[in-house]
């Protein structure tokens, strides 16, 4: 049974309360991957409103392109040269699999570089929203998926209708959901259905939604939109259904007039305009954003106090994504969670990327090492059931759609053990691939904290970054005495050990003494169930 959300009746009213470390950490953990010591300090220097505004600022598109980290490439791409833009004419499954692995690793690199912006997290949101599985459709050139990432990214914080249009005619999507073979004589309803069911309108809360005829008619509107032999988008007017399309009462019995020739391509704009004229479309996206950034449990109170007014803002803004994110993230309701708790179970990517960023793992500077490190994380995320660009269902990862468990689906007895195993490995001997090691620098992390020589402050500061749910005072004392003090009761022993390390950092005994205990401390904290909450 899910508990009632103890939210403020003020709902979307701007939050005006205190702005302390806990609020900053909450905002950061939800909007970027993890809260680093430096980011916490930086955003505490701003007001809440300034902080949200800054996080909503887009970041520039990546300059670097995915590189060949897989060896022989039949099109002649050299080692650690980019395979993007090397032509789409030659295709084979092995090459596309290799490139997919490269692209997955590269995407992990983008997430790690998210900086102080929501941009990458929102791109991932849209990736889940417009879910795809590149591994089951290896006939689609990997470069098209790279292009789709760029499309998602460049529209991630702008107009949702613009994004929807871009995806509708995205070459990878056209092939993936059979739009490329959707013709007047042989209409294929796949995309016409998912456009409404998964991307815009949704199935609705009360069942009052579009009809099967609407699916069929949307597919007819979309006939003729395809890709050419070079995998570029093209509109073939000859394949387009030029007759009028009559939609159901859900769409106000709207008629989309059929056109022949080039104007037929414009019908899709009318279709999207019709879809976005419904309240349901705005509510559907708002519910999904709410589930991603706030909590999955949307009861009647949340529907009335949050979703409905948020959807109104969304429509009034012309479906501007930044506008509703700003409204939601600055709301009284969003910050109620600081007190009522960390209730989102971290996705595997949130866990892994957040871990790397919070501990500030040093990644190799050279391309080989970088790709090894990114690949390790990508593979581990896949083991934990979240593999970028291999989303098993077109509806997105189950954790974002499958009632009633939602985020809890990330965690079962297998994945929970795997999570503990991996965090133990990273804080222990490290994860390795081809000479690249991914390992937490426990002493380095502690050095970032305000007073690592004071065991109480060290634990308090560590908890601020690593663990949102509060631990009891007795637990903290136990952790201090058992782990940092090895059973002793005098804080000074830790202080001496730390100061001894600072005075003689190259002395192995001095270093090992603090390193061993800090690793044990962080292992312990990451093995707690609380670590998986954000």
């Amino acid at each position, binding site marked *: 049974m*899910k*508990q009632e*959300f*103890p939210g403020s009746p003020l709902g979307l009213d701007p939050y005006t309360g205190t702005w302390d470390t806990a609020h900053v950490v909450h905002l950061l953990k939800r909007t970027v991957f993890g809260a680093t010591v430096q980011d916490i300090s930086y955003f505490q220097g701003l007001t809440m409103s300034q902080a949200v505004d800054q996080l909503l600022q887009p970041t520039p598109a990546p300059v670097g392109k995915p590189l060949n980290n897989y060896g022989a490439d039949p099109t002649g791409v050299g080692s650690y040269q980019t395979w993007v833009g090397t032509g789409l004419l030659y295709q084979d499954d092995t090459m596309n699999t290799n490139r997919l692995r490269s692209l997955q690793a590269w995407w992990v690199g983008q997430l790690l570089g998210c900086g102080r912006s929501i941009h990458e997290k929102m791109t991932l949101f849209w990736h889940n929203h417009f879910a795809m599985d590149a591994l089951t459709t290896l006939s689609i050139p990997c470069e098209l998926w790279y292009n789709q990432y760029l499309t998602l990214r460049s529209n991630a914080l702008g107009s949702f209708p613009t994004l929807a249009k871009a995806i509708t005619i995205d070459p990878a999507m056209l092939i993936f959901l059979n739009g490329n073979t959707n013709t007047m004589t042989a209409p294929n309803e796949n995309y016409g259905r998912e456009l409404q069911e998964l991307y815009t309108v949704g199935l609705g809360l009360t069942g009052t939604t579009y009809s099967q005829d609407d699916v069929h008619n949307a597919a007819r509107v979309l006939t003729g939109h395809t890709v050419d032999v070079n995998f570029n988008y093209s509109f073939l007017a000859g394949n387009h259904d030029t007759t009028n399309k009559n939609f159901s009462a859900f769409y106000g019995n709207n008629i989309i007039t059929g056109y022949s020739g080039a104007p037929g391509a414009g019908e899709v704009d009318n279709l999207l305009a019709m879809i976005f004229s419904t309240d349901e479309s705005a509510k559907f996206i708002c519910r999904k954003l709410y589930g991603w950034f706030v*909590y999955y*449990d949307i009861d009647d109170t949340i529907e009335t106090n949050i979703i409905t007014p948020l959807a109104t803002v969304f429509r009034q803004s012309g479906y501007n994504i930044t506008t509703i994110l700003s409204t939601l993230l600055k709301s009284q309701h969003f910050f109620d*969670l600081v007190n*009522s*708790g*960390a*209730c*989102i*179970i971290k996705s595997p990517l949130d866990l892994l990327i957040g871990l790397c960023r919070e501990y500030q793992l040093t990644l190799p500077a050279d391309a080989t090492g970088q790709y090894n490190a990114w690949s390790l994380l990508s593979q581990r995320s896949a083991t934990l059931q979240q593999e970028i660009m291999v989303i098993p269902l077109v509806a997105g990862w189950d954790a974002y759609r499958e009632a009633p468990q939602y*985020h*809890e689906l990330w*965690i*079962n*007895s297998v994945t*929970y*053990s795997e999570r*503990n*195993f991996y965090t*133990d490995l990273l804080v*222990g*001997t490290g994860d390795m691939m081809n000479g690249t090691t991914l390992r937490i620098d426990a002493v380095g992390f502690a050095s970032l904290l305000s007073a690592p020589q004071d065991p109480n402050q060290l634990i308090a500061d560590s908890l601020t970054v690593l663990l949102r*749910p509060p631990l009891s005072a007795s637990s903290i004392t*136990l*952790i201090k005495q*058992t*782990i940092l003090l*090895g*059973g*002793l*009761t*005098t804080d000074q*022993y830790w202080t001496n*050990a730390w100061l001894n390390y600072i005075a003689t950092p190259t002395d*192995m*005994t001095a270093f*090992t*003494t603090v390193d*061993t*205990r800090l690793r*044990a401390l962080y292992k*312990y904290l990451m093995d707690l*169930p*609380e670590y*998986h*909450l954000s």
Partner: protein
Amino acid sequence: MRRRDFIRTIAPITFMGGFKISALSRLPFFDVLHGATENDHVLVLVQLVGGNDGLNTLIPLSNYSDYYSARSNIAIPESKVLKLSQDTLNGLHPAMTGLQSLYDNDQLAILQAVGYPDPDGSHFRAMDVWLSGSDEDQYLDTGWTGRFLGQTYTNFPVGYPNADMPDPLAIQIGSVISPVFMANSGTTAMAVPTDADFYNLINGITEPEPDTPMGTELTYLQSVARQTNKYASAIEAAANKVTQQAPYPANNDLASQLKTVARLVAGGLKTKVYMVSFGSFDTHGGQVNPGDVTTGTHANLLQQTSDAITAFMNDLKFLGVDDRVLGMTFSEFGRRIISNGSMGTDHGAAQPVFIFGNSAQTGVLGQNPDLTGSNVESNIPMQYDFRSVYSSILRDWFCVSPDDVSTMLLKDYQYLPFIKNTACNNNYTNLNNLGNSLISNYPNPFTDTTTITFKTNGGHTLVQLFDTAGRLVMLPVDQDYAQAGTYTVSVGTASLAAGVYYARLQNQSAQQVVTLLKMNH
């Protein structure tokens, strides 16, 4: 010079119940005595955290006046020292009546002056050394018990639990697992809380989380975490099998922990090693009460330790599993010979180790430390390397072959006879034939050079020279001898500062320490 006691080795026991062992060796009883996986022996490690003052624990009676003058403000009066049957050279702190009874009951072995070369006086470093089994300047990611278990139960944790080993390899009482259990593949232990927490664990009771979204999700995560504990049901079943235990002292944290151990052992867990810990023994000040030095912080700690172990042994007997269990107490170090002005003692080096259980070979192994010529920095010179204790436990209690023991402990260590040889049917070389004085030097005192004379049974022989702080300053002999016999080595001592040194001989299970005095010109 005072006549020193020599090492008391134990004559090999070749008869059991009147029968020669060879006559029994074909019986099934002996066929199972091969390696740790095939016997039901359990080791309980009792960590006395903080550095126990060994000199006020095992009190030297044969050189009591040296003891008294080194620490008159905290010295236990000679008349209050508990006597040990068959040993007039040492006695126990008056609070340890329990351990005294174990000794008199043939259930307690005491090892003198266990330590390692070059200790640095840091609690943390010393704990790391003791738990990992490393040298002072060696840094290991694994613990000695972890290496033993990891190499005995190959591939662990893959394929575990299984029919042969359905239970945790090791159990840490408490919530944080000791590094002693770390193997290359991760920890070999599971943490089991003690006392009330223990009952909550097996009954599945946890604190209710707050009625918030966070509470909901935390409850969910905790329930999955419990499911992932592959051993929860085995532990619950074992605990539930034991409905009655013999009494334990109240308000005694160590007793609570040992009570849990007894319950799990008697409940049928095949777990090989348990770890409990107790402290803090870090008695820099107020170690004794000024009015009555037999009372105070240290007396309370020793009494709780002694009472807890005695109650544990009593309970094991009540539960019918006393033959299966051997225990060992250790601290990260002993304390300084000379007490400080705060009625306490500062960080030291070597310490006595207690081995308890029906298979403990009763006696005090080693010499009383020479306490003459001490200064405030002086430490008790090491007689036994702590890894010799581990080595002998692995060999004589877990029946691990000597080659495997060397692999697990990363080196060969001296073999010490403190476990009855019925446990693994091992035989010892009787070293008594070497005579009383195994090592001496001439001249003494000396200035630029002295000649050390030592006896060896052949094989690897070590002569180490330590200063009074326990630092290894010279290694005059570290080699194999093909022939048993008496040898000499000339030691250049010009570079040594004037003062007291200890020369330590080690050959097989024999060792002896002599005091050397370097003079200025």
